[in-house]
């Protein structure tokens, strides 16, 4: 699905991302872990063509993402609040995102019904602009806006941060479900090792721009990760 080749990003002489080769298969659920500054967000941004790669390329469905817009048709992402249009109400934002994918209002409304639990009655019909919502609720809007696009590739940067424990669990269930039923290729970064090993089949561990471990999740993975992070201190 996605092939990364010789990818490098250099900021004033410092290599922040360096991935010689990485392939992501269709339907995989991948967890991205690493301490601050490991290059997770930079990697996401390059995969979304938001920053220019210093060298190398990212091929999604046989097309280079920096040369061709076709990846936008099937990729949904939420990295930070910069993805939300904060002067819209959540409903307006969902309708807007839907209209970009040729979904009309009733279709969006139908989709949004599935998020009733996830939203916990704090998002819809509140007559508030997105900028007036709390960070956690903004993050819920961002994640839901991704899912209503019915994407084939989903990228979430720290989706578990800022949201309450029940919503975290609901989000985990949602990710598992879409992966099982729709075979969406999902890439999630998080600092919560428990959540990540819970939902992801494959974990990529980043350190200083390099992927130093690429492992299938099994019952020892969590322990292994915890060992790695505690040794660092």
């Amino acid at each position, binding site marked *: 699905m996605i092939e990364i080749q010789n990818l490098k990003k250099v900021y004033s002489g410092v290599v922040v991302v360096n991935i010689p080769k990485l392939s992501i298969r269709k339907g995989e659920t991948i967890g991205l872990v690493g301490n601050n500054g490991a290059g997770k967000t930079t990697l996401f941004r390059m995969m*979304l*063509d*938001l*920053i*220019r790669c210093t060298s190398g390329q990212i091929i999604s469905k046989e097309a280079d993402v920096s040369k061709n*817009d076709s990846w*936008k*048709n099937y*990729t949904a*992402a939420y*990295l*930070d609040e*910069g*993805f*939300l*249009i*904060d*002067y*819209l*109400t959540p*409903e*307006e934002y969902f309708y*807007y*995102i839907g*209209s*970009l*994918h040729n979904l009309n209002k009733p279709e969006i409304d139908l989709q949004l019904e599935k998020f009733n639990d996830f939203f916990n009655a704090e998002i819809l019909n509140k*007559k*508030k*602009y997105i900028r*007036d919502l709390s960070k956690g609720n903004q993050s819920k809007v961002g994640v839901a806006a991704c899912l209503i*696009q019915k994407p084939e590739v989903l990228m979430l940067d720290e989706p578990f941060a800022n949201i309450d424990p029940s919503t975290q669990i609901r989000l985990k269930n949602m990710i598992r479900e879409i992966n099982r039923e729709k075979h969406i290729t999902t890439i999630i970064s998080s600092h919560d090792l428990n959540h990540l090993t819970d939902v992801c089949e494959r974990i990529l561990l980043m350190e200083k721009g390099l992927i130093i471990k690429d492992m299938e999740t099994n019952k020892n993975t969590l322990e292994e990760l915890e060992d790695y992070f505690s040794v660092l201190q």
Partner: protein
Amino acid sequence: MTITLIRHQWRSFWRAKNSGKSLTIRIIMAVLILYLFSNLILLSFYLDKILESVFPDLNLISAFSACLLYYFLSDVLLRFQLQELPTLSVKPYLIQNIKRKQIINYLSLVSLASGFNLAPFVLTLPFLIKVILPQQGLPVFLGFLVSIAGLTFFNHFFSLWFKRKVNLNAWWMLAFVVSIGLFGLLDLKLHLLSINSFSSVIFKSFVQQPVLALFTILAALMMYRINFSFLNSNLYLDEMRSSSASSKSSTEIPFLNRFGKQGDLVANELKLIIRNKRPKSAIMMSFFFLFYGLLFYGNPKMGVGYGASIFCGMFMTGIFIINYGQFMFSWQSSHFDGLLVNKIGIEDFFKSKFLLFTIFSTINLILTIPYVYFGWNIILVHFIMYLWNMGVNTLLVLYFANRNYRRIDLSKSASFNWEGVGASQWILSIPLLVTPFVIFYPLDFLGYPEAGLAIIAVTGIAFIVTRPFWISKLVSEFNAKRYAIAEGFRND
């Protein structure tokens, strides 16, 4: 402590990511501000002559006294519109070991550094020195000076206090507007009450008894106390926010649906304009430009030939393109990453900008129709300039938008706000303002003004017809520069 806070403020100004790093812009700004103030000084030097001609049967000091209160009343209104509340920056200090009192004193002190507080002195001091000092002597001069200072500071703290009051409860605003309207009605229409003579009485008393002027200082101090105690009891984050959280409704603009995706993008941008402080005030200001024509056409000395109507026509039909377009893409800086990742064709993105420009310019063209009163050919010139705006200026503005990497905070007011202003705005203004005249004046000089107008019209139409070509140029340029634009707009 206050010194430390001021030093932090100073650093935040100079170190702000987009505070205009290049020296040239700062110099241009300084020149502009100096120019404004030199205008005020010039006005104040001739204040005695102006007063003489407006009130021929009053002596100078009476005329001056009669006007002062009007000045300060309009000062309150102006401050109410334009003055910024100094709030946002105190958040990190609230939980530190700093006394509330110090924070509030700092807020009040910093807020004093405003052009509004300098203007009354610039405006009156030359008059005071020229007329009052020689005629009435030093005590009266000092009396006037003190009273002007007192009233200025009174206005300052009154408007700060009142603006916060209004933020908490919008009814105050209504009461304010009603009482101002009532005063105006009683004074100007019904003549039951005269601010004019009231003003004379007050300031005449200062001439007789200059010490009385200290009462204005007392009033200012009282207002300071009121503002202080109000802040003291309301210094909480949720209450200090400058926007009140009233319920928001979703608005739909059915007219735009027929334009498909471009229509959706335009609808969003209209919401951007309506729901955010800075673009909203920028648009309000641009509607004032519709009165520009009165200045020129109403005055035969200025409105000779087509030159004036070309100038007015370009501004009145194109003010939105100029005023809003100069900060193109910066308006969307806070969600630019989202725009890039979403399924939006860049071509649609650019076309939506043209649609937005067309809507506003057409509205403005329609609104300028009453100028037909000054001659039908004025409307013709307006229409020609509308074509020019649609064809040439839209492209110019978008060409420069591809070179604009400055983030804008939408929640700040537009007046005296230089955020997002960069070299591109200054360079942009040159071709924008000069080109039509470069075409027109040589031909006008040779005796063919109509030919000049015709060429302007044809150029405009030619660019409208060839627009798809230019859009494709803009798109390929945007694709090359999008990383730099997105980088500049990002907050981190």
